[in-house]
C-alpha cells in the first residue's frame, strides 16, 4: 500500500510540475509561441521539422499549419500571418544573440532570436532567415 501511495504522490507531483508544458490552447502572441510555452514551442518545432524533413512542405505552409494547430486567432494579429524568408538577417536582429536553439531530428539547428516587434518571431535554419507574423516583410 505504501508503494501505491508513493507512486500516486510522485505522479501527482509530476503532473503539477508539468515539465513538458502541456497546457490549454490559448491565443498567445507569436513571440510567446517561440519563448514561453513548451507546448507551443513543440508545435512550432513540429512544423519546422515537417519542412526540414520534407522540403515539399514550405516553411510558410508549415508555420501556417502550426498556427492552425495552436488555433491562434489570426484576426487578433491583424489578419493573415506573413512569412518572409531571406538569406540575411533582418537589420534590427543581432545574428549572434540567439535566445533559443533547437536541433531537429534531421540535424538542422533552428535558432530563435529576440524580435524587435512583439508580433513577429525570427529564426534561422539552414542559413535561411525567417520572419513570421504581423508586420513581417
Amino acid at each position, binding site marked *: 500500500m505504501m508503494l501505491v501511495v508513493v*507512486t500516486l504522490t510522485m505522479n501527482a507531483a509530476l*503532473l503539477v510540475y508539468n515539465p513538458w508544458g*502541456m497546457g490549454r490552447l490559448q491565443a498567445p502572441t507569436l513571440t510567446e509561441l517561440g519563448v514561453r510555452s513548451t507546448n507551443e514551442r*513543440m508545435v512550432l518545432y513540429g512544423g519546422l521539422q515537417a519542412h526540414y524533413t520534407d522540403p515539399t512542405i514550405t516553411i510558410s505552409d508549415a508555420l501556417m499549419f502550426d498556427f492552425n494547430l495552436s488555433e491562434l486567432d489570426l484576426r487578433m494579429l491583424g489578419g493573415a500571418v506573413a512569412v518572409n524568408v531571406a538569406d540575411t538577417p533582418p537589420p534590427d536582429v543581432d545574428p549572434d544573440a540567439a535566445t533559443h536553439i533547437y536541433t531537429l*531530428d534531421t540535424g538542422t539547428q533552428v535558432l530563435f532570436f529576440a524580435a524587435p516587434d512583439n508580433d513577429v518571431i525570427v529564426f534561422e535554419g539552414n542559413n535561411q532567415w525567417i520572419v513570421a507574423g504581423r508586420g513581417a516583410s
Partner: protein
Amino acid sequence: MIAVGYVLGLWLLGFVVALGCFPRTLSPVFFAWSAYLFGAMVWMFGGLLMMVSPLTYSPLTMGVWVALVTGVAVGAWWVRGVRLSWTESRAVALVFAAFALVAVGAQVLRFAFGTYDAVAQLRFAEYLAHNIYTENTRILLTRWGIFLPTLHAPSRWVGQPFFLTVQPLFMVSLLGLFVYLTRMALQRDYPGAAASGWPVVMVVIVASAQFMVMLTVAFYSNTLSAAYFSSGVLLLWNAHRAGEPRWVPVAVALLAGFTFTRTETVIFLVPVVVVFLAQGVLPPRVWYRALAPLALVTLGWYGWLATGNRLDFPPEVFVYLTPLRALAIGLMVPVIYPLIFVTQLPLVRRRLPATDALVLGGALVLLSGAIVLEPQLMLNSIYNTLQNLFMKGVFWWGASWLFMVLALVILWDAPPVTGGRLLVATILAFFTVMLLLSFLAGGSYHSWSFRDSGSRMSAHVLPILAFYVTLRAAPLFERSTVPDRT
C-alpha cells in the same frame, strides 16, 4: 459543439454495430465501454474504402457509408432480437453520459499537445478531407497509419484544424475497459478483490502517469493503439481463461482496430495471436472464422500499399514502409492460418503448452541475432528503452513503470496466476518486437526522449502489465476459498 456531436455520434454508431454483430456474447455494458472504439473503426474503414476505391472521401460518401452500416446493424438487431433490459439500458446510459461528460470537458478545457508526428498526421487529415493526393501524401502514407487522419479529417469540412474531443475518448475507452475486463478476470477466483477498489487503484496508477495524460490530449496514434491493443488482449485472455469462444471474434475485432493505427502494428499482433491460439483451449474453427476478415483486410490494404495503386506510387517515395515490407506485413495474418492447422497435428498438440515459451524463445533468438549483427544499434536501443521507462523517463512516465516492476518483486512469492504465462509472454514478445523494429526499420535506434516512438509504444502494453500485477496482487485483497491452480 460539432466536435462533441461527432464523437458521440461515433459512440452511438459503434454501440449499434457492436451489438448487431456480436449479440448475446458479452454484456451490453462491455459494448458501451467499447462502443467508441467500434464506431471509430467503422469510420476508419469507410475512409480506407474511399482511399482504395474510385470514390472520394467526402461528407456525402462517408454519410452514405455510415447510413449503410447503421442500416445493416439495425437490421441485425431486429433479426437477432436484440433487446436491452431496463437495468442494462440504465447502465449503458450511464456509460454514455461519462463519455459525453469527457467530450464536453475536452472541448471546454481545450488541452492539446503535439510534435512532428502529430503535425504530420493532422496534415494528412487535411489532405484526405480535401482529396489532395500529392507526392507528400504518398510519403505520409508510408510512415503513419491511416486511422488517426481519417478520424480528424472531418474537422476540415467544418473549418476546424482538428477535433479536441477525439483523443480523450480513446483514453476513456481504454480505462473503462481495463476496469471492466479486470473485474471480469477477478470475478472467477477472487470476487472480493473484484468488488474492492483494487482495479480502480490500478487504473489510477496507469492513468496518472504524465505520459498517459499527455497521450489523452496529444494527437498521436499511440492513444488509439493502446486502447485497441490492451482491450483486445485482455478480452482474449478472459476468453481463454473462461474457455468462451464467443468472445474471440470481439477481441479480434478490437485487435483489427489496432492493426490500422500504425504501419508496424501487425508485427506486434501476430506473436500474441499465435501464443493464444496455440494453447488449444479454444477450437480452431473459432480462430479460422474470427481471423478471416482481418486477414482479408490487412492483405488488401498492405497489398494496395505495396503494389502501387491509383496514386501511382513510385518505389523511391517509400522511406519507411517499402513495398517489400508492406507485402510482408500484409501476409502476416494470412500466414497464421497454416499455423492453426499445424497446431492440430498430433505431434505438435502434445507440446502445445510450451508454445508460449517457444514463441518467446524464438523472439529472443531473433533479438540476439540482431544484437550480433548490429551491436551498437541494438544495445543503444535497449539502454535507451530502459532509460525511458525507469531512469530519465521518470520525468515523463512518472513512477508507474517503476511501480509495476517493484510490485512484481514484492509479489514474487504470491500464488501464480492461471494463464499468467500468456500475459508475460505477450509483454515480453511486445518489447522484443519493439526493439527489433529499430533493426528492421533500417538502423535508427530508440532514443531516450519523451518523443521517442518506442517510449510512446510502451503505452500500448502498460495496461496489460497493470492487469497482470492486479491479478498477482488479488489474493492480498481477499482470502480466496478457491484452490490455487498453476
